[in-house]
């Protein structure tokens, strides 16, 4: 299977561990990632400023992939939502499609609606499948209790076709079980990381992050796993600061799902960018568990 690899903004400019681990893990699962030139921001983070801008930018990125005749793999749930929503709108509204295509023609691009858009979770769970993941496990994660975090945009709004269920998502949990982890429910599972508030209320964003991680820590989880560069930036890179907002010293190892899969596949830690995680991941990876 071959996909245009649409990186978005946050992952390729600072969340390198997600990109590194995806580029290691996906080819082992027979997914070929094609890097294309010419992508831009998906527009979703600017929806509050101008929704037409979001729609046009999203359509533009789909058009870049369509030019190469490829389906799109968008590992960032925000990008995945922007692109999926644009597809939904443009495929059902010919006038809007004409209007957006009028914007795109200067760059010699045209949205036609031929490309599918998939997220990490779609690829791993639905397209590759649990059985195939299991086959490649060399060193299963033993006795690790994991809190899974899906991220708002991965599961809502359902109407736009999200990778997992809006109230009871479990595809990531199934994958974690397949690589030997123990995933357990926790009451804060669906809580938001607050990441989008960084634009104007960064302190409140950190409080949201801190509240969720505090709950996870108090319930004795060994680690926390996510699939969104925005969420991960909050929970991993900003964990210490988030702890200050809830008056707690937070020490929760935070991983990308693809990093944990890579570890179970026996891929070296550096190749998975595990040295880049800011949270205390060594509690898990150095055989502590």
């Amino acid at each position, binding site marked *: 299977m071959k996909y245009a690899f649409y990186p978005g903004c946050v992952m390729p400019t*600072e969340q390198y561990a997600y990109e590194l681990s995806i580029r290691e893990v996906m080819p082992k699962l027979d997914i070929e990632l094609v890097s294309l030139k010419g*992508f831009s*921001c998906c527009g979703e983070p600017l929806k509050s400023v101008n929704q037409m*801008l979001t729609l046009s930018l999203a359509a533009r990125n789909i058009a870049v992939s369509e030019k190469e005749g490829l389906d799109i793999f968008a590992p960032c749930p925000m990008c995945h939502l922007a692109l999926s929503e644009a597809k939904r709108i443009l495929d059902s509204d010919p006038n809007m499609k004409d209007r957006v295509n009028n914007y795109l023609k200067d760059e010699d691009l045209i949205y036609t609606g031929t490309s599918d858009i998939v997220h990490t979770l779609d690829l791993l769970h639905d397209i590759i499948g649990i059985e195939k993941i299991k086959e490649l496990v060399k060193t299963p994660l033993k006795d690790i209790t994991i809190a899974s975090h899906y991220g708002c945009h991965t599961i*809502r709004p359902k109407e736009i076709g999200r990778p997992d269920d809006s109230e009871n998502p479990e595809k990531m949990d199934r994958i974690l079980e397949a690589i030997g982890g123990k995933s357990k429910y926790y009451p804060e599972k669906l809580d938001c990381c607050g990441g989008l508030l960084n634009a104007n*209320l960064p302190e409140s964003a950190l409080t949201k992050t801190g509240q969720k991680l505090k709950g996870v820590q108090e319930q004795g989880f060994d680690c926390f796993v996510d699939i969104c560069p925005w969420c991960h930036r909050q929970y991993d890179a900003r964990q210490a600061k988030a702890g200050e907002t809830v008056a707690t010293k937070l020490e929760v190892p935070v991983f990308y799902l693809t990093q944990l899969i890579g570890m179970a596949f026996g891929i070296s830690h550096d190749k998975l960018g595990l040295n880049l995680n800011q949270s205390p991941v060594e509690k898990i990876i150095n055989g502590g568990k």
Partner: protein
Amino acid sequence: MSITDLTSMGESQTQIKKEINDRLKKLQDEISEFCYQCAKCTSGCEAHKLLELEPHKIVALLKRGLIDEMINSEVIWTCMSCFKCRERCPQKVAPVEILFALKNMAVASGKQIPGNYTAMLQSVLSIGLLQDIKSVTTKQNKSYSRSDLGLPDISKPNDPSKFQTMLSKLAVEKV
């Protein structure tokens, strides 16, 4: 092409404002018919406890047409876009979409855009991405850039001037 074109109250914004107004009008009609103020949206709102956002009140205010009052209020900028209100409304009203429309209207009406939105917009206009490549520092105090990690060149618009032309049309096109 500058940020002002996309956001300010210039002549070119008339059309954008009309469109947002139409969107709000449509949302208003839907609400009048469907919202019965059960406040399920507010009970699950991620911004409610922390920042006192009450989506059911936003809906009620829109129903009464108090748009100016809302676009002048900072409360519309406390939404985290988690989409829980839209997901859970028993009547399929979507407060989050009302908030997006109100924020768009505030911007098109020349209100000050809060926080980093201006910088994010400026960055998209100049390099096509929200931010430029950053170097990251590990816990062992080692710094790495994209290329140090063996990652390929970043993907961004091939011709920035053509990309900006596309964006500028968004601000001025009369539809």
